[in-house]
């Protein structure tokens, strides 16, 4: 069930109303059932995989708690290792096995041919697996006590707003809320619905509209002028931000209406002035997961902290690339980010000295703007690999950009032949202006929500209607367009 579907528009209010009407003691059970139904709308049988992940980590946590009482710490480690390996094994078979087989065959020049595993990739498997593993590690580290109530724990893993595309929640944040229960609050409802409305706008009006152009240009990249490929790549950066950001906003909004607070997943990343800042603003739930469960343990265990940090960055981005998909394009994307991040770390002091020597005012707005543009362009460059269907295509696109770029081509009448007609283009431009303005205000720490809700009633309602009707009328959905699933569902 897609968030941008009529099914969800019916599902959400029905589930929310029933949730608040039911007695508190059965709400978690009801929400668990609704969440499982939500997931089963894709492929009912894959519910077994979530069930496996839930049961394994639930029992592992209880066992770790049991061994802790008995003072058998070594056994706790083995239990954790078992939980991690069994979960990763499922993830490997469904997501990476075929990739492994194909590469093995290529490396052995087709001498090692293993049978392929022909099952569709379960939606959201990387998200819920990481969430379950995070919980098991938290229990091992004694950051949280093992949960005894299976319903509470199962709901923590399968909570429908964030089940298929995050945010990857921490047990320390969501689990206590589930245990404690929530109550209806008008403020939560309003704030949640507004967040969902903004998410729908990002998805339907911006992301899916930009996709019309990006998909057309990338599909026919060999015939395209480099200027179109550059523009398509920049627009893809905005598309994926709005696509994934919208999912997170709708998920957070839906949860907030029911009284749950999920973590912020995107915090205006394209205004970042450095890669460190970028990764503290982009897909925050995954970045902090890697920070907590890979980066810090690696650095903590090594003596040379500087080298350890470089190695840990490399490892994190390598894993992050693989996490996104079983393809070398994602791995290269991850390694490029590692390169930028490590360079930034290594050049930090030399750059400081250089700026001082050249008397560059690093606090000026212009310098800040140049830093933002630099980071954004580098991120766009990495997205060529992220968006391309293969490494060959990515290099083909870069070659085309290098050899045949004429920016004048963007102003020819042909521009409107590539997915966006004049009217769609106009809507896209207006919507992007709205997006940039809103993000700028957020970046400047202005509270847009407070600004909206303190307006007089009539003005408030008009703003709500503008948000709703701009998505309803200008949204890219319905039989005239191919419905686009959220990009991050595939991960």
């Amino acid at each position, binding site marked *: 069930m897609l968030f941008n579907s*009529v*099914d969800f528009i019916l599902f959400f209010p029905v589930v929310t109303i029933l949730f608040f009407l039911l007695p508190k003691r059965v709400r978690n059970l009801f929400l668990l059932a609704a969440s499982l139904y939500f997931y089963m709308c894709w492929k009912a049988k894959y519910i077994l995989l979530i069930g496996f992940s839930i049961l394994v980590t639930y029992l592992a946590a209880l066992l770790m708690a049991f061994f802790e009482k008995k003072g058998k710490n070594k056994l706790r480690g083995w239990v954790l290792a078992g939980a991690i390996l069994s979960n990763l094994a499922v993830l490997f078979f469904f997501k990476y096995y075929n990739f492994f087989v194909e590469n093995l065959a290529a490396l052995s020049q087709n001498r090692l041919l293993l049978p392929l595993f022909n099952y569709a990739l379960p939606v959201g498997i990387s998200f819920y697996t990481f969430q379950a593993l995070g919980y098991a590690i938290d229990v091992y580290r004694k950051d949280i006590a093992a949960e005894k109530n299976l319903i509470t724990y199962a709901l923590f893993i399968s909570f429908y707003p964030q089940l298929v595309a995050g945010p990857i929640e921490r047990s320390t944040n969501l689990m206590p809320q589930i245990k404690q229960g929530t109550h209806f609050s008008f403020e939560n409802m309003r704030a949640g619905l507004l967040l969902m409305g903004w998410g729908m706008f990002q998805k339907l009006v911006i992301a899916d509209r930009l996709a019309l152009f990006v998909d057309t240009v990338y599909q026919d990249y060999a015939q395209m002028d480099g200027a179109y490929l550059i523009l398509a790549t920049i627009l893809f950066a905005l598309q994926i931000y709005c696509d994934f950001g919208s999912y997170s906003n709708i998920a957070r909004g839906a949860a907030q209406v029911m009284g749950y607070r999920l973590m912020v997943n995107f915090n205006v990343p394209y205004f970042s002035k450095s890669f460190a800042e970028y990764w503290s603003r982009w897909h925050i739930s995954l970045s902090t997961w890697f920070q907590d469960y890979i980066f810090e343990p690696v650095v903590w265990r090594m003596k040379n902290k500087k080298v350890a940090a470089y190695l840990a960055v490399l490892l994190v981005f390598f894993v992050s690339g693989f996490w996104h998909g079983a393809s070398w394009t994602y791995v290269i994307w991850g390694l490029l980010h590692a390169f930028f991040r490590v360079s930034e770390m290594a050049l930090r002091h030399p750059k400081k000295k250089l700026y001082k020597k050249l008397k560059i005012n690093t606090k000026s707005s212009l310098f800040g703007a140049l830093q933002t543009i630099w980071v954004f362009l580098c991120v766009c460059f990495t997205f060529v690999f992220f968006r391309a269907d293969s490494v060959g295509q990515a290099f083909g696109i870069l070659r085309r950009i290098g050899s045949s770029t004429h920016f004048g081509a963007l102003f020819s009448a042909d521009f409107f032949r590539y997915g966006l007609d004049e009217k769609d283009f106009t809507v896209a431009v207006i919507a992007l202006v709205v997006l940039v303005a809103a993000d700028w205000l957020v970046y400047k720490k202005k509270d847009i929500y407070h600004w909206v809700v303190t307006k007089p009633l009539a003005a408030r309602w008009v703003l709500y*209607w503008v948000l709703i009707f701009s998505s*309803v*009328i*200008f949204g890219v959905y*319905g*039989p005239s367009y191919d419905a686009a699933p959220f990009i991050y569902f595939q991960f």
Partner: protein
Amino acid sequence: MEKYKKIIGSLLFAVITLAMLYGTANLLRDRETTLADLYSEEKGSIDMVIVGSSHVNNGIIPNIFWEENGISATNAYSWAQPTWTAYYYIREALRVQDPDIVILDLYGMTYGNSYIMPEEIDRINYENSFNIDMNLNFLGLIHTSEKVGLDLRSYEDFLNLPRYHTRWKDLDLKMLTYDPHNDRDFLKGYGLSYQAAAQQQPDYQSDERMVPYEFCVEYLDKIVALCEKKDVDLIFTMIPYLYNEAEVKIDNWLEDYARQHEIPYLSYIGEEAQELDLDYQTDFRDNGHLNLYGAQKVTMNLSAFLKERYPDYRKEDNPCAALLDEDYLKYQRVLQANKIMAESDLGQYLDQVLADSGYTLYLINDGSALTDQLAQALERAGIGQEDCTRLCARLNASSSTFGQTSMEAELFDRAGSVQFTFGDNVQILLNDYPAISIDSNFKAVLYDAILGRPLETIAYDESSGTLSHKEFSTDIIGLFQ
């Protein structure tokens, strides 16, 4: 108190928002419908509804029933209509009118065995299910189409907002003002076509029976039960087309079905077609549809049957008799127009145009040297012009205008414009749409003010001296009106 204010405010906001969404959906909805005549006629004035596919649209002329039988009739058709759609059309006809008789064309029973593939039928049916007003019949039709069609679609695709929200790109005043309930159709759902295309007469014969697609049978049963319940006389027919062997077997099954239910069945395919004296060389527009001549034969045959079965209908009993008489006169004009559209001599053609003030001819000539005939005609039209090798003109018995290189004319008798383009692409643009094109330097569009529609594009070939005609068929006429 504050809490209740918030709850009431939220509910009020939700209700207003839903109402606005409903209004937006209706505003953006394409309200053009093949049922316009059914909706626009005064309730109680329609005695008979003929339900079916485009075969009905092209094969039955309701005006003839009025003149011959005193029965006011209308065609309630949609393209490639399967039987479940027919069921909802009949329900809708019974809701908005009070007919005594329903004639059902059974082509929809051949679903899955016809010359149109089921997926194509589903697609066309899906696009046409919106012909019904937004009500329970509409919802029933989309629910059923989703359930029983072979090319299943998500129900979301049938809803107005997903389907029509992109129409913001083509906003025009008609979206606000068009109301099918005020759009009378003097041809009563008949799709006029003069065009003849010779066909090979099918000669499949079989005594075997083939059971139609299960949902067709289910919905035929429902139609029979509905008509019984509403005390409406049901008559089956099968309008001629180029059927295949399977369809003959289905036709045999339908004959048994009709006999079993004591419903008259006038099938015009197979051996039964002989009594029509149908000429496969001249009476078809294409392999699926009759032209005017074929439609006249079928309608007259049905009329004779109805005369015997319902001898008591009188025109004067109908509250809308005067309007229906006017409609019939317009239909006669259709027959009259047939004469000019069959003319092969350009001079004679221009004479006929200038003899009838109802006709207007928009013509363009860019290089063809048909000086004599054209100059004479222009002279008769009051335009003294010696060199006719490059001009555009609007010819009419009462007033004519012309230009050498450009001219703007009103689009027929309605708002809009006619433009002429010279050069490599000689064209006549009607409201920016190129008129039906024939490759020639001399071409013209004939408009009939009495029928309120363009009739045809003509072109003249100097070398052979032939005048070719290409008619504006019903399916595209909406663009130019």
